């Protein structure tokens, strides 16, 4: 009996029990759709986290005040004042830290900004001329302030795209005057939009020379974050060591474990984000795998019922000349077709949900072709492997035993 004929008999049998077949397929379908969506969600989350982290710049080191492990208690963000603008200048020294390319200290506060009749509360960031280079940011219009302007404490400001819009300074912001705590500032540039990273909107901020910010607005010379840019990804490790040693000696700390600052790298943030992410993905994948297993058991159950219920048919087919292997093949084909149908429909359903869901929930679902192909393959394999036992039982029935049953 040819494979084509076996397939035809299998399909006839499946279509002959429509409801039962549909329910079996549904079991596999749900499992496969769950797998597709799990993988898609995981991939979507990973890629969005990775792209936002990568936007930080791959050569970036982030120095924050306070030790992450000091007495097991970590102060709130910016509560420590151990880092200063002077520290940042020392880190920028090529003699002390040869692998550090550029340094951008940031003094940050939240303040009300006014422009004409409009006002907007936003992040006010005092920094140096290297900030765009260190943070890999570009300007939509105008220029960033220069080192000279920083040194001279010029009253200039660069706006984030959102801030400019909120202050009603859309496209012609250049040359306009804004006001922070009665300090007038001339807008000399607007940043190109970036998006948000970890809850911080990178487009809503006002940047001004750190010297001006510290003397006129903050009244303190402490900085909250120093961004360091290494020459390349390869020298990131060296830059990390140099920066640590330099800060330890500047702060006169001999034991590295008692450091009053923390240096993290973009890759360590990425690793944390990815590991949280992969743990979640693993959990979801586990649930999906269990649902697939249940689907497979469903196939086996239905096939066993089918074998019992179709004893007469099996007996008749044998009486008419079906060999045991022909019967086994027929049931294997039936189980595989059920599995395959579940796989194809489940992938389709998963893809449909992946297309529709982002319109209602803010999430990214990346449907990967390998996940689809793999799922269909797995569904087929599940149908086949859970069909082996029922098919063997069917093949072993002796014709008269099968014919005799009522």
């Amino acid at each position, binding site marked *: 009996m040819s494979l084509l004929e076996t397939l035809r008999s299998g399909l006839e049998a499946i279509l002959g029990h429509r409801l039962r077949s549909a329910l079996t397929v549904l079991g596999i379908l749900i499992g496969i759709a769950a797998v597709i969506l799990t993988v898609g969600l995981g991939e979507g989350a990973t890629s969005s986290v990775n792209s936002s982290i990568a936007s930080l710049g791959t050569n970036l080191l982030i120095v924050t005040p306070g030790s992450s492990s000091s007495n097991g208690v970590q102060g709130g963000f910016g509560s420590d004042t151990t880092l200063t603008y002077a520290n940042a200048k020392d880190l920028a020294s090529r003699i002390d830290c040869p692998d550090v390319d550029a340094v951008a200290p940031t003094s940050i506060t939240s303040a009300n900004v006014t422009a004409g009749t409009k006002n907007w509360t936003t992040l006010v960031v005092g920094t140096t001329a290297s900030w765009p280079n260190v943070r890999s940011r570009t300007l939509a219009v105008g220029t960033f302030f220069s080192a000279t302007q920083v040194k001279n404490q010029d009253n200039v400001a660069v706006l984030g795209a959102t801030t400019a819009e909120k202050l009603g300074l859309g496209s012609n912001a250049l040359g306009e005057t804004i006001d922070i705590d009665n300090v007038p500032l001339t807008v000399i540039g607007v940043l190109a939009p970036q998006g948000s990273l970890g809850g911080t909107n990178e487009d809503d901020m006002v940047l001004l020379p750190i010297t001006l910010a510290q003397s006129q607005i903050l009244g303190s010379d402490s900085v909250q974050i120093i961004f360091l840019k290494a020459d390349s990804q390869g020298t990131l490790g060296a830059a990390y060591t140099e920066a640590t040693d330099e800060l330890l000696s500047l702060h006169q700390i001999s034991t590295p474990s008692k450091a009053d600052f923390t240096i993290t790298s973009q890759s360590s943030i990425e690793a944390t984000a990815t590991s949280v992410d992969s743990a979640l993905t693993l959990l979801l994948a586990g649930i999906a795998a269990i649902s697939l297993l249940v689907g497979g058991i469903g196939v086996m159950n239905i096939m066993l019922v089918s074998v019992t219920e179709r004893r007469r048919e099996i007996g*008749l087919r044998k*009486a*008419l*000349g079906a*060999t045991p292997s022909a019967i086994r093949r027929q049931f294997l084909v039936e189980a595989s077709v059920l599995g395959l149908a579940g796989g194809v429909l489940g992938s389709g359903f998963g893809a449909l949900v992946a297309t529709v869901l982002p319109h209602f929930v803010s999430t990214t679902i990346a449907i990967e072709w390998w996940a689809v192909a793999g799922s269909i393959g797995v569904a087929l394999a599940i149908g086949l492997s859970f069909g082996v036992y029922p098919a063997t039982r069917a093949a072993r029935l002796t014709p008269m035993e099968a014919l005799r049953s009522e």
Partner: protein
Amino acid sequence: MARVPLESTQTPGFESVSVKPGERNPAEPAQPGAASPIVELVDIHKRYQTGVLSVDALRGVSLRIDEGEFVAIIGPSGSGKSTLMHILGCLDHPSSGSYYLAGVDVSDMDEAQLADVRNRRIGFVFQQFNLLTGLTACRNVELPLVYAGVDRRMRKQRALASLARVDLVNRSEHRPNELSGGQQQRVAVARALVNEPTLVLADEPTGNLDSSSAADVLGLLCELHRSGRTVVLITHDAQTANTAQRVVRLKDGLIQSDEATSLGGPRT
């Protein structure tokens, strides 16, 4: 191909059968000039063993059926006629004894070989019709040809020809539940004929039919006989058995009598 173990058919007392000296080897041609035997049963025993209970269903049956004969096997329930039918149909193995079907010893064949013998040599008609409900009459009739590996166009052609012989060609696309009992049994007869079998085995073919349909089906079997086919009819009903040319009476696993009916010529 995996060989399936033969379950419950080989009792511990099973002996392999060989032709004893002095006996005619039925595999060789019989007396020249005589009709060639289609069925040759030599001392067939069948014992069913369930736990400690064992039942001797057949206790030494020897029977020869020649080509073109129409034989009825009759007996009350428990007489062993169903067992005999299963052995004749190669659906079961004898516990001991030899069975030559068209000169070939089939008593030692494995499942796959027997499947092939059933496919090519035997056409079954069952009491329950045993048509597959999901398939059209034509597809049902085609089934033996599917297992014989006949290609699709040829199958259809032969199935329709076979349906024409039972006068149901206009019902070829109907499913069994759209046919009357008599029509279903005629489809089953068409299926039994489609592979041009050496032997047609009808097991209580009229048991589930009303009298007019029963007469119809019996008439069909007589017609097959007249066209030269070998037909074996298993029944418990003496009147039905009298349709045949020869009646073999079974009782308690033994042949009680073997006589020609008024329809058949004298049997020597």
